[in-house]
């Protein structure tokens, strides 16, 4: 599996072959608070880099989930729809959002590595 990369919209992405797994970061869940609703893209649909590909809602507000790369949705994680609290518990593990068959791996080049993201998250949240 590839190195985990991060977007400015607080999504993480890993790549295995041409299938990417995408979720939201721990930092994002800390900003959102208790997550009580998740909506995922439809399997078989196509999503475009930086476009919306889902929604999460906390007790406070709704936020879009963006996709950091383009591709076809090949799988979604129904368990986080059934129990959204899992997103707070394990955001960068079991609570992934969706898997994409990606077209262009070079789209990952613009994303941040862990060190860059941690710095970015720290700077933007203060």
């Amino acid at each position, binding site marked *: 599996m590839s190195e985990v990369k991060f977007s400015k919209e607080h999504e993480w992405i890993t790549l295995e072959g041409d299938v990417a797994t995408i979720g939201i970061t721990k930092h994002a869940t800390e900003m959102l*608070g208790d997550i009580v609703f998740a909506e995922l893209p439809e399997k078989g649909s196509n999503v475009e880099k930086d476009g919306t590909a889902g929604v999460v809602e906390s*007790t*406070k507000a709704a936020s879009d989930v963006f996709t950091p790369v383009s591709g076809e949705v090949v799988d979604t994680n129904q368990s986080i729809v059934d129990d*959204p609290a899992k997103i707070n518990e394990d955001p960068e593990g079991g609570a992934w959002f969706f898997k994409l068959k990606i077209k262009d791996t070079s789209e990952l080049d613009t994303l941040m590595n862990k060190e860059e993201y941690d710095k970015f998250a720290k700077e933007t949240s203060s």
Partner: protein
Amino acid sequence: MEIKKTSLNKLHQSNNAKFVEFAGYEMPIQYSKGIIEEHKFTRSNSGIFDVSHMGQLFIYGDESLTEELEKIFPLDLKNLKQNCSKYSFLMNEDAGIYDDLIITKIEEGYLIILNAACKDQDFEILSNLLGPKFKMNLDNNRSLIAIQGPKSVEILNSILNGVDQLNFMTGNWFDSDNQKLFVTRSGYTGEDGFEISISNDKAEKFVENLIEKGAQLIGLGARDTLRMEAGLCLYGHELDINKTPVEANLRWAISKSRLSNGGFIGSKKIMNQMQDGASQIRVGIKPEGRLIAREKTKIFDDTDKQIGEITSGTFGPSVNGPIAMGYVDKEFSKVDTKILLEVRGKKHPANVCALPFYKKNYVKGVN
């Protein structure tokens, strides 16, 4: 304008509060445990809320003050006993609501608790209506602390002996630390609890004492989910200048004895609406599934006609599902009416339901 801080601001900070600006004040939205934990703690134990941003208006006067206030509020104040509280509204001539409030008869006059965002305007309106005859004090030297939840009575009574003898919607003065606190048995969560008016310089120590006894600080986020589950209105959402108490389904708050002769501001409209009904009315709404419909969500019938709008919506932690309140056309206001909510461009099914979403028994009378 500089953001205002309550006398508990430092205490909020040391308890890792996340702050938001609310009505010009820096207020805690939540602490480290988060809204759901804080909500559940209040329902099972005892939560402390800093509501010092709210207005505490003392108006001093004799029977003539009662007469003047009856020209303003739809209440039977002449028969209101000392230390008893009533929920009411400050309205305009069209019965549009400037603010909703709690008024308590005290020895020297009345104490009115006002919403933070409305208090300065309320003061101006009431000053103009009452004239210079009565001394009015919108007291910035006092903090207001609410303690809510089943263990609150035991905790507060261990500090202020005798509060357990208060009936719901009554109050009294209590002595603590060489000063007088005014305590009412009331709240905004659907739980048994109290609101304590205390001078600013004593507030922090008083709250620290409550925390020592097992109560915990709760932020405005949980205050909002708690009041929504209890089906209670929040000014600026369920209530505003374009809504009347009858439309807001709050006719219970209008004293029956005042409806025959009127004589309060807005009485004509209220009496008409009481007779003919209002064209739109506030209802409880339960979306099907887990969907959350926030404020301003449009409500439709099955023919695609818009029939109303959501005024508050969230996830109810104790209900364990989404809840909302909103206004719908009269003919759609019956419990179990199927409606559709437009969220992110799609229409989702929901049902009109009875309020509150969550009900526990208040302590009504202990004596």
